[in-house]
């Protein structure tokens, strides 16, 4: 599937471990060693206390839809074959919000419904976290 020309995330010094985690099917987020705040997306300093000490914590991958939209007009041609597809802001159990796609019938997707993570491995070097409707 390397022919897929959808834009790939390009990991950098902040995000390498996050994307390595996704490749091994885990959502890793940073937990501040000083004040305990969980943060996403990954960055060098805690946005609350500015500590640069942190650990990577795995998330359960379970959460609820905060908002969503079903896209009919693709942002670029590489997405044309996938429309309509649904994008959502998902509030994970741990208190982290993440933007991703939600698979499933758009009619069943609503604010507040439970979702769980799944992973799409269509590139050799990088995977994407996606979500599907969980048992409600």
């Amino acid at each position, binding site marked *: 599937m390397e022919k897929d020309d959808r*834009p790939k*995330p390009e*990991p950098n010094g902040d995000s390498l471990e996050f994307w390595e985690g996704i490749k091994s099917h885990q959502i890793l987020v940073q937990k501040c060693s000083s004040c305990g705040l969980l943060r996403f997306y990954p960055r060098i300093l805690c946005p609350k206390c500015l500590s640069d000490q942190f650990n990577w914590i795995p998330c359960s991958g379970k959460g609820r839809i905060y908002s969503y939209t079903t896209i*009919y007009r693709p*942002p670029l041609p590489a997405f044309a074959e996938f429309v309509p597809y649904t994008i959502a802001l998902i509030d994970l159990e741990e208190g982290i919000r993440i*933007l991703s796609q939600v698979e499933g019938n758009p009619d069943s997707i609503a604010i507040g419904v439970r979702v769980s993570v799944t992973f799409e491995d269509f590139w050799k070097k990088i995977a*994407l976290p996606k979500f599907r409707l969980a048992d409600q």
Partner: protein
Amino acid sequence: MDTFNLSGKAIIAGVGETAMGKHPGKSSLALHALASKLALEDAGLTKSDIDGVLTCGSLVDNWPHHSGAFCEYFDIQPKYTDTVTQGGAGSCTMVQYAAMLIANGVCQTVLTVGADNQLSAMTRNEAVQSFAKNRHPQYEYPFGLSTPAGYALIAQRHFHEFGTTREHLANIAVVCRKHASLNPNAQVRNPLSLEEALNSKPIASPLHLSDCCISSDGGGAVIVTSADRSRDLKNHPIVILGTGQGFSYEHICQAHNITDTGVRRAGKVAFEMANVEPKDIDFVELYDCFTITVLIQLEDYGFCPKGEGGSFVAEGHIQSGGKLPVNTNGGMLSFGNPGIAGGIFHIIEAVRQLRGDCGPRQVVGAKLALVGGVGGIFSHTSTLILGR
């Protein structure tokens, strides 16, 4: 800490807008230059009076120093020049920074200009894609988040929290079209019914095509000078009474509460500076990249209680002749929208209304206006309160 009060120290001396629509023979810089010339003529000033130049960038041209490219093309060597990069909030912010330069005696007269030839130089796909690239390259763009989809996330959540409907949003598009029909320079002037708006094709649910701004070639310029130059001007000066900005986040994935925006902070600062309240405002020109953008601003500036934007619109208050006419030139939904520069026409329209120059679309007794700019997906917001 007391903040320096800009109120009344700077005035808008002149405004100019080119024809709006498709102008295949005109480059982005050409449209900047034509708009600037019109604004100079309107002010009764010459190029040599200008000692500051601000621009807000281009989607079509990719100059590393955009204001430098424009100043070279226009052959002007101002004391200070720069480009404001706040997307659609940039137009209001250019005028704010011009007022600050003038109030502090750094510059005497500042030219602010925005233009682009997006309609001719880009296909629809290219334009959509160039906006989509503003989404976060790791946490948004790879998932296929378009710009309309970003605003759609806000709209969907607003529907959920407050019972807002597609009809409420469609009303805004219909009103803008009605106002455009009264404006000879508006790009799209044919009538739009509520039914047509509701039946337009879906883009990113709940937003449909009629909820989205149009695409144009065109340019606008606003010249700001010090209040003590009022007497030298050809037209009635319009006073900058209040300004404010509200930054929230660069990317929607980082928003804490997507229905409560930076507009509230921008408005609070601007209202306090101008020493007025929302009820004192005669009309508003609100950034309308999408219909939901207008509805949220109506609430967050305090023109109606939070969550009641839908009923405020449905009750007809935003129409010409209503309690608070909105986007009297037709807005970006119908008047025109040359990419990043779409917001400058809101300022130009406010100035013309305050001068009483708007003919059939004139707001009777227009004395006090609020102009709202929005950049990104409610990332940057920027406010002007203007008076005659």
